[in-house]
């Protein structure tokens, strides 16, 4: 596959399928792109395979982290001028509430887009957008 062409299709047409073609992890976890105009909203549908604590039950913290990282990368693909797939340098995930096994949505905001490094903030929520269950702060390499 030609990654540059796939990334360009994702960026120019906001084609949800193009993101999943570039990032296989999205299909594996069933992460979907809901709206790709301006700020993207990603959906992590309620699935038993995302559960980390069967007693509560609650979503796995690593799954939530991976979902937020994906939201950051998808937003960066759209916001960049080039056709690169951003690589994470570091991430900090704050877990604010237990993730129930219901549909979870995420969006990301690019705080600064430099030539080499981008700074991104992402948040995910369940019923109420104003009550995020987790947030991510991260730096990504754009080269």
């Amino acid at each position: 596959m030609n990654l540059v062409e796939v990334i360009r299709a994702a960026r120019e047409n906001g084609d949800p399928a193009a993101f999943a073609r570039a990032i296989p992890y999205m299909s594996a976890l069933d992460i979907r792109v809901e709206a790709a105009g301006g700020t993207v909203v990603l959906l992590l549908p309620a699935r038993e395979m995302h559960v980390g604590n069967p007693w509560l039950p609650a979503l796995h913290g690593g799954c939530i982290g991976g979902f937020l990282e994906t939201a950051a990368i998808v937003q960066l693909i759209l916001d960049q001028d080039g056709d690169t797939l951003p690589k994470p340098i570091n991430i900090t995930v704050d877990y604010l509430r237990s993730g129930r096994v219901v549909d979870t949505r995420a969006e990301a905001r690019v705080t600064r887009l430099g030539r080499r490094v981008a700074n991104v903030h992402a948040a995910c929520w369940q019923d109420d957008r104003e009550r995020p269950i987790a947030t991510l702060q991260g730096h990504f390499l754009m080269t």
Partner: protein
Amino acid sequence: MAASNFLEELRAFIAKPGNQTPHGRFLGMEVVYLEHGRAVLRVPYDATLAGNAATGVLHGGVITTVLDSACGVASIAALGKRMGIATLDLRIDYLKPATPGETVTAAAHCYKVTRNICFVRAIAYHADSADPIANCTANMMITSSEPAGPRPEAVSP
């Protein structure tokens, strides 16, 4: 000694396939070492979990999950009895891309336990722990002092 009995119980609990977490089972994650305050977990390579279809490099989410899990298991192993914990904060530096095709190992050390919080550091690596893929520090919150009890049969979304 009570502490080593607890570790034996914890090892036996973890060894039972039915006690894996659903997300751990999905990724093929397994605990390969457990000592007081220390845990080593492993996740096999799977191309369907890549973050880049062209290179096949694993998505950061897989590294995050195995590190988070290792920090959680190391914390429980440090507590000396079954308690509920939840990740409060997870920081990861991605030092180099994971090599496609290779198993990822995460080694965690819970080096301090207070009344409410477990402080943990961890690294992820392939064969050589001196050449890590990722470095991690985490804080886990102790959510309950009660044993978790038998594992529920199924989780319906």
